[in-house]
């Protein structure tokens, strides 16, 4: 029985260790939290947007696919609709940005009857080949941008614009 008794000395040392432990933890915790914070940051938007286009429906002819995402401009949220020209090249799916590299007009597929199988910009008659390569001697100086794409449950998802990788 007597060996279960807690002596005054033991009691004090347990209590002091406990309290001291709490105090140390109180100081260390925020430091640790600050240190690992960058890892815990959640990624801000910018990722893939789901479209209503079925992967199976995509053909070799470029087709316009719209996709809408929310844009936060300071405190003002708005829905932005962008579009892409999507087609299949073998098994690969290609999505090209419709923004003309000249001054930012929207290009259309085969919009000029004189030039089949090309993208056409109605503003200054800029032309691009199917893979987005700008046709020499037309105003644009670079190829159309490309979008990252992936599949989600049979539907197409479009990511951020990247420089053209096909040209």
């Amino acid at each position, binding site marked *: 029985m007597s060996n279960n008794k807690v002596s005054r000395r033991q009691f004090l040392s347990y209590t002091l260790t406990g309290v001291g432990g709490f105090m140390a933890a109180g100081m260390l915790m925020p430091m640790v939290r600050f240190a690992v914070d960058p890892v815990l940051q959640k990624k801000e938007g910018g990722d893939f947007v789901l479209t209503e286009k079925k992967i199976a429906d995509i053909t070799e002819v470029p087709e316009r696919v719209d996709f*809408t995402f929310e844009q936060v401009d300071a405190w003002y949220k708005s*829905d932005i*609709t962008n579009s892409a020209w999507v087609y299949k090249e073998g098994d690969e799916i290609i999505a090209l940005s419709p923004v003309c590299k000249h*001054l*930012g*007009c929207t290009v259309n597929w085969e919009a000029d009857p004189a030039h089949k199988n090309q993208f056409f910009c*109605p*503003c*200054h008659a800029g032309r691009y080949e199917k893979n987005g390569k700008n046709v020499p001697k037309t*105003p644009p100086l670079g190829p159309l941008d490309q979008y990252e794409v992936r599949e989600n449950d049979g539907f197409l998802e479009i990511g951020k614009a990247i420089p053209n990788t096909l040209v």
Partner: protein
Amino acid sequence: MHWNGKDSTVYQAQKEFIDTAVIPLIQIDGSDEGFQFAASAADFTLSLANVIENQFKGRIVLFPSFSYTKSQDKQLVFKDWQEELNKASFKHIFYVTSDREWSTMGEEQNIIWIPSVPLDSMDQKMRNSVLEDQLRQLIPIFAKKWAN
């Protein structure tokens, strides 16, 4: 291009390519019977103007809309805009409106008259597809005027 500081810098640098001004004309109607219709038409015209800007970004400058009341002298409005925009060396000026009266004032004034479609009850997707349809019809009109 929009009528803002950033785009106007681009305009000044690329004047040879950006040669067209687009001005939406919006009628203000305070009467009981016309109020709602005019507001709805304004919404349509402005939305359409934005779609046009998006399509032809590199060739047009979309100006802030010009709002007027029925009694204002329309001929005078043309004259004033023309004079001012000539200073900025625009080759073409297009006015976008859904007010019928402008379209009876002569072809040479470059009026693009489009009867208003009530967009109020449509959701965003429907709105976009209506405006896209309208835009498709406008592209040849712009192309034709630019070709001359």
